[in-house]
């Protein structure tokens, strides 16, 4: 059914022609004229005036058709002067430079990402205390990772008698840390600490309480000169 309610079988079945008023010969001749090929041989003589008309229409430019050149050139100069220097390069050259810069930045980004991932992984391994001894000790001194522990649990830097090696190299200070600041560690944490420290003489890292999920701790520095404990840092993790 058509949109007007007439079934397709009732529609006329005449063959459709797009332009029944134009003969094939005329069509070819006119197309040749419109394409600038001139009047073909054997064309309808009635098309001769049309061919002459089209020739007049596409004749050489007259003087009054060239009068706006100075204004167009001025506009062109003004526009070119307003452009930045790099914009005056050819589009292909700009594309090449852009492509090179893009490739370089992608490589640099990938290298940076690899370095960051490697450093991050090393730091994570250091804080997890799984690095080899010398590496772990280096991480301990460089970024405050846990000191290396032997299999029996004694931290590096402690003697068999349990005396401490000062954390700080400054002779005036002996810093005693409880190891890495552990997030979400409670003052009631019952498990083994990261560092078997402080010695039995007394805790130098004092957990003063817990606020939410973060423990607050003090870092106590014992000054070698007078032996007094001083609070160096009060942090919240």
């Amino acid at each position: 059914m058509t949109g007007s309610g007439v079934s397709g079988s009732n529609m006329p079945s005449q063959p459709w022609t797009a332009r029944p008023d134009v003969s094939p010969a005329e069509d070819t001749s006119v197309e040749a004229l419109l394409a600038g090929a001139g009047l073909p041989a054997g064309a309808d003589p009635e098309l001769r005036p049309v061919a002459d008309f089209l020739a007049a229409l596409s004749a050489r430019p007259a003087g009054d058709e060239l009068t706006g050149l100075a204004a167009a050139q001025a506009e062109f100069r003004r526009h070119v002067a307003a452009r930045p220097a790099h914009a005056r390069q050819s589009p292909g050259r700009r594309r090449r430079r852009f492509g090179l810069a893009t490739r370089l930045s992608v490589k640099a980004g990938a290298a940076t990402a690899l370095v960051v991932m490697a450093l991050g992984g090393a730091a994570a391994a250091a804080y997890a205390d799984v690095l080899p001894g010398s590496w772990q000790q280096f991480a301990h001194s460089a970024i405050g990772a846990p000191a290396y522990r032997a299999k029996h649990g004694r931290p590096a830097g402690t003697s068999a008698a349990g005396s401490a090696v000062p954390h700080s190299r400054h002779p005036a200070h002996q810093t005693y840390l409880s190891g890495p600041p552990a997030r979400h560690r409670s003052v009631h944490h019952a498990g083994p600490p990261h560092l078997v420290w402080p010695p039995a003489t007394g805790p130098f890292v004092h957990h003063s309480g817990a606020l939410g999920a973060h423990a607050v701790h003090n870092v106590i520095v014992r000054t070698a000169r007078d032996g007094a404990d001083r609070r160096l840092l009060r942090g919240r993790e």
Partner: protein
Amino acid sequence: MLVPILGAVFGEDFPAVLAAAQRGSEAAFTRLWLDANPALIRYLRVIAPEAAEDVASDTWVQVVRGLVRFRGDEPAWRAWLFTTARRRVIDASRRRSRRREEPLEDVPVAALPVIADAADEAMERLGTQSAITLLERLPRLQAEVILLRVVAGLDTDAVARLLGRSPGAVRVAAHRGLRRLAEILTEAGVTL
């Protein structure tokens, strides 16, 4: 033999000329302008006879601004140029329609310009201008199609895209326009 004044003028040189103009070469831009402006003026004198030069100037301003971003071959360049011109014509006609104009009744008859019959004038002077004047007697679509095919050197598909019509409609308009021109020329007994 007909040679469209804007048809494949540059040929193989076109990419180099275009690239030089895009880099800022005024000489290359001048070549593009000299090649295109006569055809542009002829086109505009038919579809915007009252403001052809102004619209052509506006068209070139637009072309200069967009020249760096243009990508394409010579036919694409011509299509872009005439598409820009056509849009300028539409914008200009919209501006005119919004502008308040003095009613003709208020103008003294003696002050009205005397306009000769366009067909008579065309018969008197043979040449490009008379051909353009004769084209103005055709319906707008037919005249525009003939100009874009013959003067601008665009093919049927390009003209169809430019005008927003089907290629078949463009062919029909061109044939009917040329047939009507043949009738006018035969009736007047004029050979251009």
